Every structure is written in structure tokens, then in C-alpha cells.
């Protein structure tokens, strides 16, 4: 058996891929990581700005329809809280931990994210459903009276509602992805015991 193992070890040594000029270029690796971080930061900022704009428009234009305005603002504030909380999610655990501890910490992180996403999805769904009623009534009134401002306001409200709805769909996809990731991890963890 020892001889077999030595043979395997020799094969392992023979399997060393040749060094490439790109190997271990820390500047390249860090630049890549930084680019990704910058992209995430930019996206988060853009979402915050969009929310701010939505809040301003909601507050200005829904003066006559306080219930619709309040619900729209609540949805926007809720989404802002979700973004803020998502941005604050702890990064991956340190890879310096032992393999077992690292995977356990990673699985725990996924669990936390999944719990949080479920909660936020519930909130957004309720806000969306709640906003539909006054938006519908505003639209009905706008169609009956034919006021130009009311029509514009209603169109904006519908756009906002569609945005919230899409974010619910995106959260569902994210949940599914996280659940798959967690399952993979748990499968690997199970193989250790």
C-alpha cells in the first residue's frame, strides 16, 4: 500500500501545471475584486437614488391622495431599509478558518440571508398589495375626470408598483439561488461527519 501511495504521490507531482505569467499577480487579482466591489457600490447607490426620487415624486404628486401617497412612501422606505440591511450583510467568513468551521460559518450566513430575504419579501408583498387598492381607485377617478395631472400621477404610481412587483420576483430568484447554495454546502458538510 505504501508503494502504491508513493506511486500516487509521484503522479501527483508530475501533474503540476506549468506556471503561467498570470499566476499570483496580486495586482490583477485585487483590481478584479475592486472592480466587482465598485460595481456593487454603484448599483446600490443607483437604487438609493431611485428610491429617493420615488419618495420625492410620491410626496409631491400624491398630495391629493394621502392614502396612496403614504402607502407608496411606505413601500419605498421599506425597500430602502431592505437595501440598507442587504448592504450591511456580513462578508464571507475568513478563509483562514479550518475547512469545517469555514463551511459551517458560510452555511450559517446563507441561513441568515434566507431568513432576511423571506421577511423582506413578505413586507414588500404586503406593501404592494396595499398600494394596489388606492392606485386602482386613483386610476378609476383619473379615467372618469380626465384630469391630466391625475393621469400622470397614476401612471407614475403604476410604474412604482411594477417596480416593487419586479423586486419581489428578483427576491424570489435570489432566495432560490441562496437555498441551492446552502444545500450544496450542507451536502458537503454532511459528507464530513
Amino acid at each position, binding site marked *: *500500500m505504501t508503494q502504491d501511495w508513493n506511486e*500516487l504521490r509521484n503522479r501527483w507531482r508530475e501533474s*503540476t501545471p*506549468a506556471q503561467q505569467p498570470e499566476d499570483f*499577480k496580486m495586482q490583477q*487579482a485585487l483590481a478584479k475584486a475592486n472592480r466587482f466591489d465598485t460595481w456593487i457600490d454603484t448599483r446600490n447607490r443607483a437604487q438609493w437614488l431611485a428610491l429617493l426620487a420615488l419618495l420625492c415624486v410620491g410626496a409631491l404628486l400624491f398630495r391629493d391622495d394621502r392614502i396612496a401617497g403614504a402607502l407608496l412612501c411606505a413601500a419605498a422606505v421599506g425597500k430602502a431599509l431592505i437595501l440598507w440591511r442587504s448592504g450591511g450583510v456580513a462578508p464571507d467568513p475568513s*478563509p483562514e478558518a*479550518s475547512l469545517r468551521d469555514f463551511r459551517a460559518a458560510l452555511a450559517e450566513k446563507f441561513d441568515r440571508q434566507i431568513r432576511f430575504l423571506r421577511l423582506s419579501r413578505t413586507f414588500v408583498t404586503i406593501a404592494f398589495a396595499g398600494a394596489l387598492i388606492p392606485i386602482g381607485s386613483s386610476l378609476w377617478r383619473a379615467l372618469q375626470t380626465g384630469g391630466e395631472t391625475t393621469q400622470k400621477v397614476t401612471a407614475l404610481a403604476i410604474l412604482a408598483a411594477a417596480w416593487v412587483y419586479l423586486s419581489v420576483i428578483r427576491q424570489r430568484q435570489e432566495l432560490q439561488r441562496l437555498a441551492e447554495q446552502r444545500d450544496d454546502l450542507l451536502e458537503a458538510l454532511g459528507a464530513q461527519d
Partner: protein
Amino acid sequence: MPEQVDLEERFRRLTEEYGAGLRRLAAAYEPDAAARQDLLQEIAAAVWTALPRFRGDSGERTWIYRIAHNVASTARFRARRRQSREVAWDGGEQPAGPENPESRLQQRQRRTALTEALRRLPTLDFQIAMLHLEELSNAEIADVVGLQPGAVATRLTRIRHKLADDIQNQGGSR
């Protein structure tokens, strides 16, 4: 600034010393050459980021392999989800081998048989086997994976039998 220079020097030394082992590790995790390159860069970035925190509480070798395996196994989960096309590692970037084409073919088959057998192992066994092939002691492997040295020894015995049988079966079926 001297600290930065010192860090860069340490990083360069580590990559020189463990570069070959890390390339073997990346090749075992990632059959695809481009993905392997990305993985090596991810490992390099993780090592570089963690380097200022390394105080030598554990051995340098166990520290670097812990980082490499954790980064690589996370990448492996991602790859599994992507269900990326499995590309058999054909050893396309091999160091110079025997001139004789027949010997070269044999050598390539031997390498492929080993990496394929390794990849068929469960994740933890796969990692323990690689660490053992890199000649880490049982205590060092235990430190990397988070098991007791006794448990590592037991697993290694089982892994050796499994690998030897698997490779023999592959050889027999060819």
C-alpha cells in the same frame, strides 16, 4: 511604506514556495484552464488580503492551504450551480516530459487517472487526499480541515484503498 514592501516580499516568497502546490490544487478543483486561472487569482487575492493578519499562530503551510481550499471549495460550489461544462483536464500545460510520444501518452493517462479518481471522492476526502499528496503530516491536515489527527489517519487509510482500487479499475477498463 516599508510594511508594504515587507508584505510584498512575504507574498512573493509564499507564492514561490507554494506556487507549484497551489497550481496542482487549482488543477484538481478546476478542470478548465481559464477557470483555473481565475481560481489561482482568487486564492492569491485571499492570501494577500489575509497576509497582514497572519501572526504565525499556525504553520505557514497549513495557513496557506486552509485559505486555498476554502476559496477553491467555494468556487467549486459556484461552478456546480452554474453546471458548467465539465472539461476533462488534458494536462495541456505540462512541463516538458519524455520525448517519446508513447511515453508521453502513458504519462498523461496516469495523471488523468489520478485526478479523475480524486474528483470522484467526497469533498472532504478529496481535500484530505490532496493535502496528504502535498506531504502534510496528519497533524497539519487535521489543523487545515478541523478534524482530530486520529480521524484524519482513519480516513486516509480508507481513501488510499479507495483511490488505489479506483485507479486500478480505470486501468483495467482501458
